[in-house]
């Protein structure tokens, strides 16, 4: 047992334990020892997990590159015939990175929440949920098979539901939580269908399956030959998985829950709805990247969705006034960037943007939370302004994070976003690049708009609030500052070659996530070529397959020097984001009159109205999906009662009518004529009439008699 093997299982188990302790005893601890003890208890488990994650990260870096995939089998989970699921964790460079993000940002946000949730009477419950969330998220990240991942996947959904509706006395919060859960479930059905497809074909082709990623990867080229309903199997699975990602990572058309999810306390928005949970879809795609290398059409589809999401939500972000809503749409848009990277085969770039985004977006959310608390839960930016003087740490941290998200040279966002745009250009299409490029400008615009509206200019808040607002305590602002520093610096982990770096991050991930070296379609053809070669060779049995691989690969390796183009695109996007940032400066700080003049035109008004109302997507869903479903179930409820049950009652009624008729018939006509035969019918009639009075003895008696008669008839008839 190496160090990693012995400690990794504790990473999810410790927060789970913390959640249990706080959930069961939290109230007692809270009332007896107070807020600080409860808070420290809540922070302790994530903190230990973070230490384990960090030390394991060091340990894995010392291992040889080939030994960096570590699987830790705990026990059997479900084993039925050819389905053999295990409780197994997988620690490799990809989960190592995710573990760092989740545990470190998680711990910081726990500490931050001690300040943010101060005085809340459900303080302990909040920390219990937050611990539970970390446990589920870590399960998702560490799962070695699709089902453990799915367990974490649903688990984080549950915690998201619980935390969005944390202040449940507001009906609106509870509704937002429910919406998040159900929209996610729609995506989950897609994910589950994908898993079922993998299970089905694995069991059919290989005798048994444990659904682990290693097994899936190993079988991928056999599965690539399969078709399902006439479509290539892997394309179908890839789309199914992506539907799951659409729900969890808020892509069009399933993104609608995320902006509503801002109803939750701000630490939740920072941790769950910015840094970790919503990126689960990106992580999942990275985990099964081998699937996507075989699914170029699915990637094409994803690239369209991603580009659309990236652009549309950025435009909505421009027209929001609620500070958290701006950040929420920004998150959706940034997730679009990540999927854009994945969809052109730049998997490591997507994961890297996940990392940098986790840092700067968490910082932004936490900063906004700091403001919200200082202003006594006001979130409207129209009532802010000038806050930099009052809240310098929060202010400068948010400005740093804004520099990162706009892609200011040498900040983290600069490296990660540029990599994505570059890959989109070279491995996708110039169109994809253009959408991403435009959206980058919009990002810079709405982020600087946010900064100028909150921190600069004259204050627009009332005097009372202004006088009372002040910088938050250390436990709140220090985590923000730490993340802001991270947002500025972590980009240096992945400096590309043309800037003199070594793409260290990409290399670190390489044992588990290989980027495509060419566009997905081209790569797919290459893979097929290799396969055909392999088959020819195995039938001819002449050459070793190894040389075939090399031959096929070498045929496509025409190295072109793109350095000039790469520089050009980089300079263009830096110039463009500076320009839009400057526009924000003019419109919101320097010369608001100019903005008002533009906004005065009818066209601008209309555009603004559409954007402010989020393109009316919620209204559209309400009319097209929800209302019909409501009508359907109301109809079915009535149908069930009136028709299905009505028939039963009608049958009962007819039985009663018939029996009383027989009773009358029997009394008036039969009786006295055929005494012997009459007896039976009379009994039946009386029995039936006594049904109304509920005399059970008669019912039993008569039914027994009916039995005997019917049995007799049947035996006679059958003879």
């Amino acid at each position, binding site marked *: 047992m190496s160090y990693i093997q012995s400690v990794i299982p504790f990473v999810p188990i410790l927060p789970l334990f913390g959640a249990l302790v706080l959930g069961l005893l939290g109230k007692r601890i809270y009332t007896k020892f107070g807020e600080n003890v409860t808070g420290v208890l809540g922070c302790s488990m994530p903190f230990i997990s973070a230490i384990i994650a960090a030390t394991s990260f060091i340990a894995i870096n010392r291992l040889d590159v080939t030994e960096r995939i570590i699987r830790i089998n705990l026990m059997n989970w479900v084993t039925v015939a050819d389905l053999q699921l295990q409780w197994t964790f997988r620690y490799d460079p990809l989960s190592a990175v995710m573990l760092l993000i989740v545990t470190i940002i998680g711990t910081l946000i726990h500490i931050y929440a001690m300040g943010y949730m101060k005085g809340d009477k459900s303080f302990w419950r909040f920390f219990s949920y937050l611990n539970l969330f970390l446990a589920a998220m870590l399960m998702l990240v560490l799962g070695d098979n699709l089902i453990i991942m799915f367990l974490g996947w649903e688990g984080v959904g549950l915690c998201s539901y619980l935390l969005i509706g944390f202040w449940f006395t507001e009906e609106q919060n509870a509704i937002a939580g429910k919406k998040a859960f159900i929209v996610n479930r729609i995506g989950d059905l897609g994910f589950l269908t994908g898993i079922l497809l993998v299970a089905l074909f694995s069991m059919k082709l290989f005798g048994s399956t444990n659904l682990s990623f290693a097994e899936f990867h190993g079988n991928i080229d056999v599965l690539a030959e399969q078709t399902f309903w006439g479509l290539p199997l892997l394309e179908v699975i890839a789309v199914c998985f992506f539907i799951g990602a659409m729900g969890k990572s808020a892509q069009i058309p399933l993104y609608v829950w995320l902006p509503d999810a801002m109803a939750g306390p701000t630490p939740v928005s920072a941790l769950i709805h910015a840094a970790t949970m919503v990126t689960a879809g990106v992580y999942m795609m990275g985990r099964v990247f081998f699937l996507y290398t075989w699914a170029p059409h699915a990637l094409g589809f994803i690239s369209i969705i991603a580009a659309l999401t990236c652009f549309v939500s950025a435009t909505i972000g421009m027209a929001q006034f609620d500070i958290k809503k701006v950040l929420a749409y920004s998150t959706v848009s940034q997730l679009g960037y990540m999927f854009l990277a994945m969809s052109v085969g730049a998997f490591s770039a997507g994961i890297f943007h996940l990392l940098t985004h986790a840092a700067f977006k968490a910082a932004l959310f936490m900063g906004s939370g700091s403001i919200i608390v200082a202003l006594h839960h006001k979130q409207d930016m129209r009532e802010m302004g000038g806050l930099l003087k009052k809240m310098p740490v929060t202010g400068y941290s948010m400005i740093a994070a804004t520099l990162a998200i706009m892609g200011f040279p040498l900040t983290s966002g600069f490296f990660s976003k540029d990599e994505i745009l570059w890959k989109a250009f070279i491995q996708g299409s110039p169109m994809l690049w253009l959408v991403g490029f435009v959206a980058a400008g919009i990002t810079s615009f709405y982020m600087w708009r946010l900064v100028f509206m909150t921190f600069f200019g004259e204050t627009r808040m009332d005097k009372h609030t202004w006088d009372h607002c002040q910088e938050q305590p250390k436990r709140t602002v220090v985590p923000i500052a730490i993340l802001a520093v991270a947002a500025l610096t972590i980009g240096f982990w992945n400096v590309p070659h043309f800037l003199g770096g070594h793409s260290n991050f990409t290399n670190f991930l390489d044992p588990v996530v290989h980027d495509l070296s060419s566009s997905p379609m081209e790569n797919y053809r290459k893979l097929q070529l290799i396969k055909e070669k392999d088959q020819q060779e195995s039938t001819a049995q002449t050459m070793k397959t190894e040389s075939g691989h090399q031959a096929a690969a070498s045929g496509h390796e025409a190295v072109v020097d793109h350095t000039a183009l790469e520089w050009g695109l980089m300079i263009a996007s830096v110039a463009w984001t500076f320009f839009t940032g400057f526009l924000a400066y003019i419109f919101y700080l320097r010369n608001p009159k100019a903005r008002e003049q533009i906004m005065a035109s009818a066209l601008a008004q209309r555009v603004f109205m559409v954007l402010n109302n989020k393109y009316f997507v919620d209204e559209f869903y309400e009319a097209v999906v929800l209302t019909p479903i409501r009508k359907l179930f109301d109809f079915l409820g009535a149908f069930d009662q009136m028709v299905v049950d009505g028939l039963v009652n009608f049958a009962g009624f007819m039985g009663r009518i018939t029996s009383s008729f027989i009773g009358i018939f029997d009394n008036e006509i039969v009786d006295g004529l055929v005494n012997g035969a009459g007896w039976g019918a009379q009994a039946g009639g009386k029995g039936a009439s006594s049904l109304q009075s*509920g005399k*059970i003895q008669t019912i039993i008696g008569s039914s027994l008699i009916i039995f005997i008669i019917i049995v007799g008839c049947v035996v006679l008839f059958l003879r």
Partner: protein
Amino acid sequence: MSHILSWVVFVPLIGVPFLWLMPAKKAKWIALIATIVDFIIAIPLFTHFDKSVKGVTSQMQFVEKLPWIPSLGTEYFIGVDGISISMILLTLIIGVAAALASWGISKYERGYFAMFLLLQTAMLGVFVSLDLILFYLFWEIMLFPMYFLIGIWGGPRRVYAAIKFFLYTLAGSVGMLLAIIAIWYYAPGERTFNMIDLVQRVHEGGVFSGPMIFGFPFVKVVFIALFIGFAIKVPIFPFHTWLPDAHVEAPTAISVVLAGVLLKMGTYGFLRINFPLFPEVFEWFRDFLIALAVINIVYGALCALAQTDLKKMIAYSSVSHMGFVLLGIGAATTQGINGAVLQMFNHGTITAMLFLLVGVVYDRAHHRQIAGFGGLASVTPVYATVTSVAFMAAIGLPGMSGFISEFLILTGAFKVYQVATIIAGLGIIFGAAYMLWAYQRVFFGKLNTKYKDLTDMNFVELASVVPLIIIVFYLGILPDRLIGFFEVSLNYLSAILIG
């Protein structure tokens, strides 16, 4: 201990005379002790059960065989295999939980608990009987206590609900009895009511020599007659309408037993008698069964969405969840059928929990209208938490038992019916919708001031629910511990049905 199985079946009945030795107010203690004692003496059953024995057609375990009515060839023949042992465990667990849920009964206590214990014996009897007549006897005996328990201790429309339940089930039983007689009469080989022998003979190629009935092949008619009898109990659409009425009117504990155990008898009957006796007809009927399963799942879930009464909503959720059992059985693949039996167990524990929890609020508020509550989470935090766990279990959240069984069923069904499985998956979405919607309306939002003094769950209520919660989590994490009991039997059954 010899005759252990008979002891397990009849210990509840032995408790009945003791009810009259105690003051009426203390009768509940006798019932609780009887169910707990029954549970304890059943422990060797599980520890000594040989998990590698196939059962179904061949060797049963803990067998007891005595001549009963020699002229008819019926015997007192009981025994268990993997299929029944899990159902016995379920019945014993639900028995204790239901005894605790009966704590508030304050009308004719002795009569109530006598009926309750008789019901317990009858249910256990159904699961151990290996003789068709004995099976039928226990099946019918079950009706009487159930009728009284709903009809006397039930809600306002109890008489209507009780008669409906009784007549509906009885109507199904008539066909069943005829089918049993026909099976006996035209059995391959010597006439017998021994179901294990019969299945064995069919498996070895024996055929029923019956004539055409109304122009239909004998086996198909007998199959359908049996099927309807069991289908009413499950209940399968369109025979399900007795269930919401019975649930709404029944006292809490009886709802618990009804949903927890009684519904499983239908699907148990499919697995024990109906399908293995007529494997070819099953093959012919399979597509139709899958269609019914999907209807149950989706239709049940949509009807649940439309309900305003909390208990009725859960009743319809039972219809939906039992649809999953049917889906697994209909698929008859190893995962499908194992998942189905696991789902029978899990639905038993989870739905029992749900009804126990509805009982808690009904005892305090005296109504169950979903819209009539609101914000209860602020006054009854423990109750809200426990209920959220139970609701999440019902939704099939991974980590809890319901997910494992639903996943196994979907995996199993997907092997043979892809479209049906995906449609069934919609049931999972609707399931989340009705559960969360109801939860939100009852527990979240502004507190309805009428209920500002509502008391939280008491010790007895917690004692009935918490063990079930533990089971739900335990089987979510280590489902193999239960699957181990029936896997061998069911894999064999799957091979008989579709192999």
